[in-house]
């Protein structure tokens, strides 16, 4: 549904710097593709090119086989800095959005309910905070009939339980057949959202195996939060883990309490293979009857995932000049929890 073929594009960021795409080729038909990178790496240009808001200088971008500008009603685009029609109330914006897309009439409250924003319906857009404005934009995109959703940093700038609702709603839309393309600089957000991952580095796109986001030089790490008053209470669980062959090390720390997890102990479990470590955790939890509250996979920092970019030489070397030796592959970084 979304097809980039050798696309070169350039967008201008708010600070005047360019956001570039250099020969991006990707195809995405359904589900959530999470592209890692910063605006300077080309994430803004990627989304704006797909939305038909920036000129593709070479190559092509197609949405369902058509130019993006001709498929505007099929596309819902939510940039990081959202702009809504400032003179209207939120409910009027909801109606306007439906009319512009030629969608059947839908009550504004129903659109806003996607993210639990019904209370904002009668507010003027001008009176909304940036976070509220962004949430409304996301709700309009998620409640639209658009078959292509383009969202920049979907979980940034949201309050309270909104991120969980956004993830759920995006996944629902993807399950219903929409092609969702999200860009983010957060590896954690990308792994939470994406069916597949990609990475943009200085405008160059590459697919990223999902496991690559979790597994570094020292293998994979899982943080398991166990409901317990103190560390000694989870000794059976730790002992069971230690018997598992896939587990290389186990570290225990008291969990910084929250309103939800007020009495918990976190255990960081390391191993070579993420899936094997996860199985070991499940087995150990079942054996020791531990009360597992949450399991969180550690992710690599964005810098570690950037695809190495080979910059073409400006000057063609002489024929008799020996080719320089290939640079050594960078060492895989450590995974941090």
């Amino acid at each position, binding site marked *: 549904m979304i097809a980039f073929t050798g696309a070169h594009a350039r967008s201008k960021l708010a600070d005047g710097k360019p956001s570039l795409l250099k020969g991006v080729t990707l195809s995405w038909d359904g589900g959530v593709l999470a592209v890692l990178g910063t605006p300077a790496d080309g994430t803004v240009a990627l989304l704006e090119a797909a939305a038909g*808001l920036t000129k593709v200088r070479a190559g092509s971008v197609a949405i369902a086989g058509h130019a993006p500008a001709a498929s505007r009603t099929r596309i819902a*685009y*939510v940039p990081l800095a959202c702009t809504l029609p400032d003179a209207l109330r939120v409910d009027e914006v909801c109606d306007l*959005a439906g009319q512009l897309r030629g969608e059947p009439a839908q009550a504004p409250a129903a659109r806003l309910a996607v993210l639990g924003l019904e209370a904002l319906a009668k507010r003027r857009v001008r009176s909304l905070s940036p976070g509220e404005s962004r949430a409304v934009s996301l709700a309009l995109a998620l409640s639209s009939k658009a078959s292509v959703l383009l969202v920049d940093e979907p979980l940034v700038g949201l309050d309270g339980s909104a991120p969980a609702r956004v993830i759920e709603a995006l996944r629902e839309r993807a399950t219903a057949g929409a092609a969702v393309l999200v860009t983010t600089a957060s590896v954690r957000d990308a792994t939470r959202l994406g069916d597949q991952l990609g990475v943009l580095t200085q405008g160059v796109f590459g697919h990223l195996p999902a496991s690559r986001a979790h597994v570094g030089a020292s293998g994979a790490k899982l943080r398991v939060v166990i409901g317990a008053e103190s560390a000694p209470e989870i000794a059976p669980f730790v002992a069971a883990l230690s018997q598992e062959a896939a587990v290389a090390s186990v570290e225990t720390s008291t969990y910084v309490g929250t309103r939800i997890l007020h009495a918990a102990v976190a255990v960081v479990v390391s191993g070579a293979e993420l899936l094997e470590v996860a199985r070991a955790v499940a087995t150990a939890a079942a054996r020791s009857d531990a009360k597992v509250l949450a399991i969180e996979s550690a992710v690599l920092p964005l810098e570690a995932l950037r695809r190495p970019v080979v910059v073409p030489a400006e000057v063609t070397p002489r024929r008799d000049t020996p080719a320089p030796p290939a640079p050594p592959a960078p060492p895989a970084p450590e995974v941090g929890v």
Partner: protein
Amino acid sequence: MMLVLARVPALRLLRTPRAWAPLLLWTLAAVVIATAARSTGSASGATHVMRGSFAFLVLPLVAYAIVGAVIGGAGLQQGIRGVVALGAEPRQAALASVGVAVAYAMAACGVLAALVCVLAHGSQDPPLASDLPTSLWVGALGGGAYAAYFCAGAAIWKGKLRGVFLAFDWIVGGGAGFGALFTPRGHVLSLLGGLPCAELSQRASSALLVVLLAAYAALAVALTRRA
């Protein structure tokens, strides 16, 4: 679709009381000047006021203020970004904004011109029965042409050229040179009985104002193909 899109810029002016301030200021100025002309017993007060302060100050500045209020003050691209984000085609959204600005300016400037004509009318002025519709027509046409002209300025360099266009009109538009052909001032003055603009007839100036309105509106829309 255009009506749906036009609702946003139309409401932007109506729901922004702060935007009314310059409009009210220039309306008040026009009324005061016209009343002063009448109270001094000027025999051709309407002619003097219309060719003088109305054509020089009130007409362009009212149109300038209306364009600023309709597009939101920060350029045409920025002004339509909200509806484009909801799926509108940028050029359609720009056309709707320009259309609303032109319509508002035509209505406001036409009514204001008629008001000034009535208030300042003197014994040596043409009969009110013919002068009033002429003033209404010239005010409306001039206001519309100015609005399109400023919309084109608002579509360039994040709207910063709107002020430059105003200055250009003041500097070049009042003269009889070639440059005056491209700004509304010379044509408006000609239609109000002033010197012909570049030696053109009033009919030609009238037609050129319509052409300028269409050309600047088209330029503004063309410059806003991406928001």
